[in-house]
């Protein structure tokens, strides 16, 4: 297993895409922080990049990589190796490489310029999002044999999580604003890992505004120990469940 992970990571770290991704994140973060005069504003500017770009790159890059290494996987399967070992190694390799790229690209500038609670949560959320979207990509790629269709599905999934879901929530919120929907809304936001990350960072940088009426609900949920534990559990579930589904499918798949 270690050998496969090592091979996948080495292969990925040498790939131009990951290097460019790291470099772009580095340049972006450094320039954002040197332009903004205070750290929190830099974190806000980076927030949009992280919530938008990280899921996109993670999901598209992983899907493309999986399709491109279909032959390599066939080779591995022909060896006396168990299928879940192969699949898990590929996941760990991919997730490790993508989150390492993010950790270097955004983590280093954050440590230099914004080593605050909000900065650290930003980095942690970015890593979690990398894991989650690699796992979602695995599921999409294993379900669909056709490369073009598979990448199409990956883009659609990203579009759903990054844009459509929020539009849906906004719509529901306007429609049902006369009802006591607060707890329902919090529960709904747990259905989208991007929203969870955003709210966690919001709790750090917009705390004053959140202390108003709705803030009480926010804080009583996300601000308490139980709430934090639940959000972390949900984020872990978000990376584990698609992975588990993909694994189940991969084991039975006729390559």
């Amino acid at each position, binding site marked *: 297993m270690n050998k496969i992970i090592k091979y996948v990571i080495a292969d990925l770290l040498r790939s131009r895409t990951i290097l460019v991704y790291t470099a772009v994140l580095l340049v972006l973060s450094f320039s954002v922080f040197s332009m903004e*005069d*205070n750290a*929190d*504003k830099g974190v*806000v500017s980076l*927030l*949009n990049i992280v*919530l*938008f770009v990280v899921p996109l790159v993670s999901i598209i890059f992983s899907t493309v990589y999986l399709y491109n290494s279909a032959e390599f996987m066939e080779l591995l399967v022909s060896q006396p190796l168990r299928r879940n070992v192969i699949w898990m190694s590929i996941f760990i390799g991919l997730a490790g490489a993508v989150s390492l790229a993010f950790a270097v690209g955004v983590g280093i500038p954050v440590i230099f310029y914004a080593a605050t609670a909000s900065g650290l949560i930003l980095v942690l959320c970015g890593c979690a999002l990398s894991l989650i979207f690699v796992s979602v990509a695995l599921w999409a790629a294993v379900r669909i044999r056709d490369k073009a269709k598979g990448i199409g599905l990956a883009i659609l999934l990203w579009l759903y999580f*990054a*844009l459509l879901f*929020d*539009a849906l*929530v*906004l719509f529901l*919120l*306007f429609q049902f*604003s006369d009802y006591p*929907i*607060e707890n329902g*809304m*919090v529960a709904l*936001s747990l259905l989208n890992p991007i*929203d969870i990350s*955003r*709210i966690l*960072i*919001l709790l750090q940088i*917009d*705390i*004053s*505004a*959140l*202390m*108003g*009426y*709705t*803030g*009480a609900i*926010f804080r009583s949920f996300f601000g308490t120990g139980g709430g934090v534990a639940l959000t972390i559990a949900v984020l872990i579930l978000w990376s584990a469940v698609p992975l588990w589904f993909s694994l189940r499918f991969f084991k039975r798949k006729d390559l």
Partner: protein
Amino acid sequence: MVAGMVRAATIEVGPRHRITSIKSALELAADGDTIRVVGGTYREGNLAIHKRVAILGVDHPVIDGQKQYEPLSIFAPNVTIQGFTIEASGQSAVTDIAAVKIYDTHHVTIADNVFDDNFFGVYIQGSSQCTIRNNRLTAYGKTEQLTGNGIHAWKSDSLHIGGNTVTGHRDGIYLEFVTHTEVRDNHSLNNRRYGLHFMFSHDNGYYYNTFTNNGAGVAVMYTKHVRMEHNVFSENWGDAAYGLLLKDITDSHVAHNVFSRNTTGILMEGSNRIQMQRNQFQGNGWALKIQASCMDNRLTQNNFVQNTFDVATNGSLVLNTFEHNYWDKYEGYDLDKDKEGDVPYRPVSLYSMVVEKYPMAMLLFRSFMVVLLDRTERVLPSLTPENLKDDRPLMNPVDL
């Protein structure tokens, strides 16, 4: 009169002196005398002062109200109470019992005392030219009803309230029908309701005070000609908490203040002709909520930094002037290098209006959808008031 001044004597009170109670010292004293009280605890019920005396405590002797009495009632002018610890006044829902109550007189000084666990701290009614200086007032009221105000003045004139620290009372400083008064260098923290609360109190000045973490911040109402300068309003958090609530305040100046980390920095309602200059708004949820009922207010040279929303309003009519302020969210440019932005800044964002109407929408704040909506609105204002804009926003923060 002259004879009286010459005769002025000092009466010593203490456990080891001939006179052991303040009450008997008060009976012996004549106008102009000084009563020096040495350490110990004095439980003498209510001490009513009808003579012009100075009562000075040495090493903070304790005057205990035993949770029943009003420890000190002052009826005479030119009385000084200095250096005491006054604690455990009675509590009542019917009469306002205070640790020190000043009744219809003038030139009273209350200085360097510690007030602990009283209902009202210092209560001034119908008096003038009184000084309340360097006192520390602490109460432990669980609810607004179970505690009185720290420094409470009613129908008074020309008071000087300075250097006091008030915590745990209902309102830190409360003024009603009080005129020509200066409130300076006070700290009002962790009070149940308001840090400072005044109504119908014209021509007063508030300088260099700090109001932090009070239940509902600071609320001032129905008053004209107020000057509020160099104060700090911070960490007033909650749905109905404001750094500063200005309700029906007219012809006033709000300058050089710092509003930091409040849910709402300033809420203005029915307030006219207020000059707001050189204030720092930092890290507030809403820096300024200005209702459509306000007119002819001028906001110039203020810094708006790191606020979630800069300005919110509730209508489309705008009769106020915003000019030469620094907004950290401003994205315009300055081609002619005159340090003023060349395109106007619109401080009201669409989403702040949405949140006003649907508070729950805060859940989606800073999501891509919302950023998109805000951007579109900035380019083509349709829902936000068109005239609420700063035509000449500053490119750099104002030095305060």
